[in-house]
């Protein structure tokens, strides 16, 4: 644990010495890049789920990632959030934060929020409590022992409840929500953390067309202030989002560009769209 701190302080000093004005704990966006992956490789028993993957996400960008099943999309998010460790390569959040040295909780604190492919909410807690726990605040155990929900915090939860249209369900156990509602709740939990970068793994799976369209509107309104990386198979949804599309295949980038360009790429048609 101490090792992390020392290393990060070292990184901080290194970066100040080369002249970046920087507030410790803030993401350094001086090159306008919020996420930088270079040559990242992850293998499971010799099988390369990520194969020298390189990817840049700009600050405020809304990026879509597509690709066939098993392309490594979820693994990429696992590596960014510290769930899976990279065997090789560089992973930076902003200019200075080296994600490879951090734990899951530290990465979350630095400002990366994640929605899982399979929606995971706290089933036995109420919708309200799910949002309350996700709220950006001091999350150390000794603080939680004495924490008290004030009116400001209640208002914040109430705002998010309205945004994700669950204000009627605040007191229900999250386990009783429909699949689509759970997806929304998880998105709400993500927003409560107020992350700088949101990673969304198949966020509209199981949603009705209407819910999907509303989710698209929400994501577009978040872009700019936040950066978003959305993994999806739903092409209509990706079209609605606009933005740059990256195609992953066998653990690396196959093509990148706007949706039309990518859709006309011969290799993309071969491995993904044409099937």
């Amino acid at each position: 644990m101490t090792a992390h701190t020392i290393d990060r302080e070292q990184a901080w000093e290194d970066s100040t010495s080369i002249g970046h004005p920087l507030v410790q704990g803030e993401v350094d966006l001086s090159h306008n890049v919020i996420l930088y992956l270079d040559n990242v490789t992850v293998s499971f028993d010799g099988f390369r789920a990520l194969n020298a993957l390189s990817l840049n996400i700009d600050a405020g960008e809304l990026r879509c990632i597509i690709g066939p099943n098993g392309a490594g999309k979820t693994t990429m998010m696992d590596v960014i959030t510290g769930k899976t460790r990279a065997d090789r390569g560089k992973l930076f959040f902003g200019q200075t934060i080296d994600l490879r040295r951090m734990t899951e909780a530290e990465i979350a604190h630095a400002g990366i929020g994640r929605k899982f492919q399979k929606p995971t909410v706290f089933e036995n807690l109420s919708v309200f409590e799910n949002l309350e726990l996700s709220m950006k605040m001091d999350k150390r155990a000794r603080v939680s022992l004495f924490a008290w929900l004030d009116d400001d915090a209640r208002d914040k939860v109430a705002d998010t409840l309205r945004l994700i249209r669950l204000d009627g369900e605040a007191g229900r156990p999250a386990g009783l929500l429909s699949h689509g509602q759970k997806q929304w709740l998880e998105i709400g939990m993500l927003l409560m953390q107020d992350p700088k970068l949101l990673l969304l793994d198949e966020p509209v799976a199981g949603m009705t067309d209407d819910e999907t369209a509303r989710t698209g509107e929400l994501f577009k309104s978040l872009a700019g202030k936040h950066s978003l990386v959305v993994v999806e198979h739903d092409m209509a949804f990706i079209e609605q989002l606009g933005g740059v599309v990256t195609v992953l295949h066998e653990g690396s980038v196959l093509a990148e560009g706007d949706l039309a360009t990518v859709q006309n790429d011969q290799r993309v048609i071969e491995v993904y769209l044409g099937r």
Partner: protein
Amino acid sequence: MSRTPFIVRFLGATPKQGWIAIAIAAAITLVLLPALHLLVPASSPFHVSAYVITLVGKIMCYAIVAVAMDLIWGYTGILSLGHGVFFALGGYAFGMYLMRQIGRDGSYQSDLPDFMVFLDWKALPWYWTGSDSFLWSLLLVLVVPALVALVFGFFAFRSRIKGVYFSIITQALTFAAMLFFFRNETGFGGNNGFTDFKRILGHSITAPEMRVTLFALTAAMLLGTLVLGRYLVTSKFGRVLAAIRDAESRVMFIGYNPLHYKLFIWTLSALLCGIAGALYVPQVGIINPGEMSPANSIEIAIWVAVGGRATLVGPVLGAFIVNLAKSFFTVAFPEYWLFFLGALFVVVTLWLPDGVVGLWRKLRNKGVAA
């Protein structure tokens, strides 16, 4: 809005009906039963016998352990099958003091405890230093089980040992501790443990006043444990514990470090068990390594399952139901007790996943619906 003072929040966590129940329980255990034991002559039908006081006192110690177990198992989802070790360590820590209080009244009339004379030891081992001090012993009661839990928990939780693996290594922990305490050279009386206690703070341990004092202290401790538990599980801390139980990895990805949460509740749970053990030993008059047997720790889990996990009151009921049944069986049909216990566990697992409290809630809801 002004911030609510902590004490108001702490007391407010227990609802009004809870306080009424606690007041009734306190009136019975702190006033009524002691008075019926001390003041009513043995010839009267209202007299409460020493047997009853000791039995209820003993079961209340178990109930404290059950509530402690509920905090870690029911509320956090971590099944410990080694909680007996913390109970026994608390018991041994206070037992050392009780052994020293025997003074020269032992069979060998020595300053050393009898078992040391028997082993031909000439002086107390270093770790018995200070054991003649009441306050030092209390300190050991609080510190030793908690410290063992802290160190064990730190390594287990940091290595992310979970589920059945955790349960198994806690069984191993209590088993290893039992073997260690069985050895005569360990210096805790080997397989006989400690017994033949005479005094606490110079007062006879068999005096009715002493019996009632220990009984009342145990009752107060149990009620205090319930109030503390109630505060914890209704606090934000408690909601994080429930979240860890539901989806631990999600908890990490929203920025909590589950290690600290688990370690705190685990250590607190062990501390409560240690206190319960220290209250138990003077009331039953003996502590030996049998308390650390793996089966004992499994029985603790059964109390909680029978009463109802994640309910606080349930484990208290469970401890009473199972142990009253045990007292009955071991007198009436001793050979059938384990069969009964096994059957009870099967019944609860299959048909009463939320224990008797769950059953009661179900019946009440039906009553409301009808």
